[in-house]
């Protein structure tokens, strides 16, 4: 029987789990279901050994629940359309805006100084939320699968039935967008011009 302390500890992570689930699934109700399932599994399952941090352990459970939810959605004909859009998100011409015709940077990356110092600031992660929300939904899902759930290329390709090249284009697009957004909204003006 889990202690009341453990239940309370779990609840503290609800906000974080909701943020991840929301970004992945783009469906508030579904995200709530998945987080509920995660917390229930955490309370009733084989138990937390204490070897990793609680958040890491919960993220592991959440990952499986999200993948299950995505699989269930894919079986539904209506929901299948949302991953069908993946192809149109893969159009490479869209990011020519970052480069001139000759392949040189249109706007050269700025000097971010010591970006690691931003990682101490809660506002920085709020800005990351903002920048992640700007990504097209399927792009964000795929990026989170790679960077938060840490799935490998072949796992993601198998899960979404896309080619490795498609995947790399999507991740490239996500990184270009995220980098630019963080530069414009956080790092620009925080360092001396160079």
């Amino acid at each position, binding site marked *: 029987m889990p202690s009341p302390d453990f239940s309370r500890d779990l609840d503290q992570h609800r906000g974080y789990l909701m943020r*991840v689930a929301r970004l992945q699934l783009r469906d508030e109700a579904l995200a709530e279901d998945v987080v509920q399932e995660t917390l229930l599994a955490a309370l009733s399952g084989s138990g937390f050994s204490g070897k990793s941090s609680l958040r890491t352990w919960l993220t592991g459970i959440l990952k499986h629940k999200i993948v299950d939810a995505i699989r269930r959605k894919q079986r539904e004909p209506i929901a299948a359309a949302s991953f069908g859009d993946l192809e149109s998100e893969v159009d490479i011409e869209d990011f020519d805006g970052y*480069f001139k015709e000759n392949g040189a940077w249109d706007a*050269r990356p700025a*000097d971010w100084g010591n970006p*690691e110092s931003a*990682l101490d600031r809660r506002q920085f992660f709020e800005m990351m939320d903002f920048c992640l929300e700007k990504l097209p939904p399927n792009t964000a899902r795929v990026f989170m699968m790679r960077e*938060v759930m840490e799935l490998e*290329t072949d796992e993601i390709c198998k899960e979404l039935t896309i080619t490795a090249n498609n995947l790399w284009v999507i991740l490239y697009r996500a*990184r270009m967008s995220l980098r630019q957004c963080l530069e414009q909204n956080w790092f620009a003006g925080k360092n001396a011009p160079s």
Partner: protein
Amino acid sequence: MIRNALGHMISCKDASRLMSRKEDAPLTFWQRLTLRLHLSVCAACMRFERQVRFLRTAMQMYRS
């Protein structure tokens, strides 16, 4: 001078794609070589490389 020519065998656009791909799959020997040569002559792309690596660190912290 030769290094400058070699460094421009690939464009910044090509380099940016390679730097992103490197985060997800190993590059071929040739890709690694042309990328490294480009980075040795392009400060903008060097910044980009550091920033892409920082993005991964930031995402790791974001998840925990």
